[in-house]
Each structure stands twice: as structure tokens, then as C-alpha cells.
């Protein structure tokens, strides 16, 4: 079809002893985690365990009370401070709520960062939008408004928005929450396809075990503010860790 896609720049994540409390209530209590360049790490955890909190620290929307997170050689705070043009790689986040701008069309949402930072011409932007929407199977929806889309479509537009800036690191917060099993499978396949195509580093937060099985190179389990189990995607489903076993049993995937 088109020329082979350029591979993503390698990005590693090192989460070192990260603590975070709200109103004196600790949510993260010393999280340690390594994410390898180009891999897909799945973070599993029950509702309210602090998965979204952890991922917000990694993208730099919030700062940990204690500990540090490094993206390659720089801390997240240093990375965030750099202006867009000087950033050595691109990091994007796909939000739990999709977080599309409701007043903009699909195409405008997908191209928002490119337009605001003037990093491509009008023609180039049109091409990028078309290509990214094709990748998420939403070709032809350019002029629709987010309110006209289903939850699954919105999620895929949010993924297209991350693809449009050629992200080297993509964080997904519950990409399949509120999706039916078929759509879940679709989004899983999409994340896998992104992986095969450009090999960005991906972190996927979910409590959906079939999805984890589909996409994970590694799985980390977050519980009571710590990573209690960390294994390769295949090993995870045979984990002997009591909490992981419980989780697997409850989800009836073993």
C-alpha cells in the first residue's frame, strides 16, 4: 500500500518508588516498574486501585509526592517542560473517557496537535488524518462530531489522535471500558497492529484479562498501591501469585 512506516523511537520507562496520596490517603505506595523500549506492558488492577493515578504520573499530568519516573534519560517533569519541537520523542495518552474535544469534528480532533503546533502543511495534515482514520477503521468519518459516534468509535478516534503525531510512547487508560466483547477484541487487535507496525512503547491499563492475553508482552499487577506481580504475557496466566490467581479465577480465564 503506502511506504513502510518509520519505526518509533525507542522509549523506556522507569518508575522508581513512586508514592502519591490524596487528602492524606495514600493511593500509590512505592510503585516500581520498568517498561522496555517497544514493548506493550499491561497494568492490571481492580477498580480504584490507582491505575489511572499511576498512568497520570507517567504522562506527567500529576507529579508524584515521592520517587521519580524517567522516560529514557530525563524525568517526566523535564520531558514535559520541553517545548514540543525540542522533545526527543512523542508521548500520547488515550483517556478512559476518550477526551475528544466535543466542539471539534473527528478530523479536527485527530489533527489538533499538528495544527496547533504548525508541524505540517494543510495538505500533509489531510493525508495524515486520512491515513490515521484508515488505521483505526474509521475512514470517511472526518466530518462527524464526537457526539455522533459510539463509545467504541470515540475510543478509536482517540487512538487515531495519538497516531497522528507519530507517538513513540502511547499510554492507554482502560481502552476497552464500556465496550462489548466484540469491540474489545477489535481494539485489542488495533493495539496489536500498532505494535507490529511501528513498535512504539505502549502501556495499557485495564482489568480486562482477555485483552491482556491478546496484547501483553509483560503484565504488572497493581494492588494496594504496589506492583505485586510482574511476568511475561504468557507466564502471567500461569502465575502462582495468590492475588493474581484470585483475579484470574474470578475472571474465569483459567
Amino acid at each position: 500500500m503506502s511506504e513502510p512506516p518509520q519505526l518509533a523511537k525507542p522509549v523506556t520507562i522507569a518508575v522508581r518508588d513512586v508514592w502519591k496520596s490524596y487528602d492524606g490517603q495514600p493511593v500509590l505506595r512505592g510503585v516500581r516498574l520498568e517498561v522496555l523500549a517497544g514493548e506493550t506492558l499491561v497494568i492490571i488492577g481492580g477498580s480504584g486501585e490507582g491505575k489511572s493515578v499511576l498512568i497520570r504520573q507517567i504522562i506527567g499530568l500529576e507529579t508524584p509526592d515521592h520517587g521519580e519516573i524517567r522516560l529514557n534519560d530525563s524525568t517526566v517533569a523535564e520531558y514535559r517542560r520541553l517545548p514540543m519541537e525540542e522533545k526527543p520523542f512523542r508521548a500520547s495518552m488515550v483517556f478512559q473517557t476518550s477526551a475528544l474535544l466535543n466542539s471539534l469534528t473527528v478530523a479536527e480532533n485527530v489533527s489538533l496537535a499538528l495544527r496547533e503546533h504548525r508541524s505540517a502543511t494543510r495538505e500533509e495534515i489531510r493525508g495524515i488524518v486520512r491515513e490515521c482514520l484508515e488505521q483505526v477503521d474509521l475512514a470517511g468519518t472526518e466530518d462527524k462530531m464526537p457526539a455522533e459516534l459510539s463509545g467504541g468509535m470515540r475510543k478509536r478516534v482517540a487512538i487515531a489522535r495519538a497516531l497522528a503525531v507519530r507517538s513513540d510512547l502511547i499510554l492507554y487508560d482502560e481502552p476497552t471500558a464500556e465496550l462489548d466483547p466484540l469491540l474489545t477484541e477489535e481494539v485489542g487487535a488495533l493495539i496489536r497492529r500498532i505494535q507490529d507496525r511501528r513498535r512504539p512503547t505502549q502501556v495499557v491499563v485495564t482489568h480486562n484479562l482477555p485483552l491482556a492475553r491478546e496484547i501483553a508482552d509483560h503484565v504488572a499487577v497493581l494492588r494496594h498501591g504496589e506492583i505485586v506481580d510482574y511476568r511475561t504475557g504468557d507466564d502471567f496466566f500461569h502465575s502462582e501469585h495468590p492475588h493474581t490467581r484470585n483475579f484470574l479465577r474470578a475472571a474465569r480465564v483459567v
Partner: protein
Amino acid sequence: MAQATDSARSSLRAPPGVVAALGRGTLDVLQIVGECVSLLAATVWHCRSAGRHLPKIVTQLLLVGSETLGIAALVSLFVGMVMVVQAADQLANYTQEVLGSLVGLAMTKELGPVIMGFIVAGKSGSAVAAEIGSMKVYEEISALRTMDIDPVPFLSMPRFLAMTLALPMLVLYSDVIGILGGTLVVALDPTISISVSQFLDNLTEWLNLTDVLVGLVKGLVFGMLVSIVACTFGFRTSGGAEGVARATTSAVVWSFVAIIIADFVIVRVAFLFFPATPK
């Protein structure tokens, strides 16, 4: 004995809940004022890049216009009319010849700016607080930040410039329509003894440019206040749809209070520079 003094002392104290709530309320107010001031500073700073965001500013300006022009005309017309009816009654045993200057001065210096400020706060300010508030609770603002898009030039600056430019224009519009309303009553109400030309002569004789300018300056300041208050409450929204509703109401109430306080300050300062002119 000790018990008796204890209970005597405690009866002198205000119930502990009230003091704590008062303290907390004061801190909240200071916090919000601080947030408004820092957002104002950041927004003004980003007005440098207004040229790049021109389409957004124009869109906002048109939006403010479409939200307010109709209601502004209606309210101004009736304010002008009621003023003449009331004043004519008061002046019936005195002289109705001053009606023109009365309506002209009241409209341009006070009522035009304040009423337009209230209307912009109620229509556009509330809409902006609701819009930014829901962007906040649905993580759209967070999404902007992950894309390195600063919400201040992206959201706050165009709304700030639009309302700040729109309000003085609305004040002029309101002045004209209010005076028109007054003129209509003078022309049609049989209990008013002066003629339309007497009314307008008196008005033009007394109304000078500084009066109109003071009104426009008020509009400018009210526009800044309303937009910054609306954006501040939008950005500090939390707690889902209910939080958005709370932010919207607070933005309108705070705008009203800010307008009235600023009105007083501007009038006081204006009298320092332009002392009341004896005529």
C-alpha cells in the same frame, strides 16, 4: 465551680462550626481571587499570540454577539422607557425639562455598562464556565496538556479578548437603544409635558464624551472580569456534571459581585481625574 465558668465561657463563644465555616469560606474566597488574578496575568501575557488565534477570537466574538444582542436590545429599551416613566412622575411638580440629561447620563454612565455586564455574565459567562468546566471533568483539558497545548492561549485568551471587545460595543448599543426607549415614552406618553426635541436637546447639552467614555471603560473592565471569572470557575471544576452546574452558577454570581465592586471603584477613580463639572 470550674464547670460553671467553663459553661459561661463557652456560651460566649460562637458555635465552633460557624467559626470554622467562616474561616474556610474566607480562605476559599481568597483562593479563588488568587486563581482569577493569576489566570488574568497568564491570559494577558498570551494576548501576544492573538494574531495566530484570530479565527478563534472572531468565532467567540460572534458567539457573544449572537447570545446577547436580542436580549440586550429588549432590556435596554425597557430600562430607558421605565426610567422616563419613573422620573417624569417624580419631576411632575418640578420640571420635566431635565429628563433628557437624566436618561442620557444614567444610561451611558451606569445602567448601560452594568446591565450589559450582567447580561454577558448570565449568557456568555455561564456558557463559557459550563463549556470549560465540562472539558475539565471529561479530561479534555488534560488531553490538551498531554498534547502540549496550553489551555490558556487555546481556551481562555480568545474568550477573554472576545468578551473584552464585545462589552464596550454592547454598552454603546445599549446606550442608543435605552435612549431610544426613553424618547419613545416622551413621544407617546400624554402625561409628559416636554417634546421629543426638548428631551433630545437637553440630553445632548449635558452628555459629553467623557461620560460615554467612562461607560465604555466600564464595559471593557467588566468584559475582562466576566471572562476571567468564567474561565477560572471552568478550570477549577471538579465532580462530574454536578460540578459543572455548580461552576456555572458560581461564575455568574461572582461576576455580578465583581461588576458591582468594579463599578464603584471605577466611578471613584473617575471622579479623581474628572471632578464633577459645575454647569
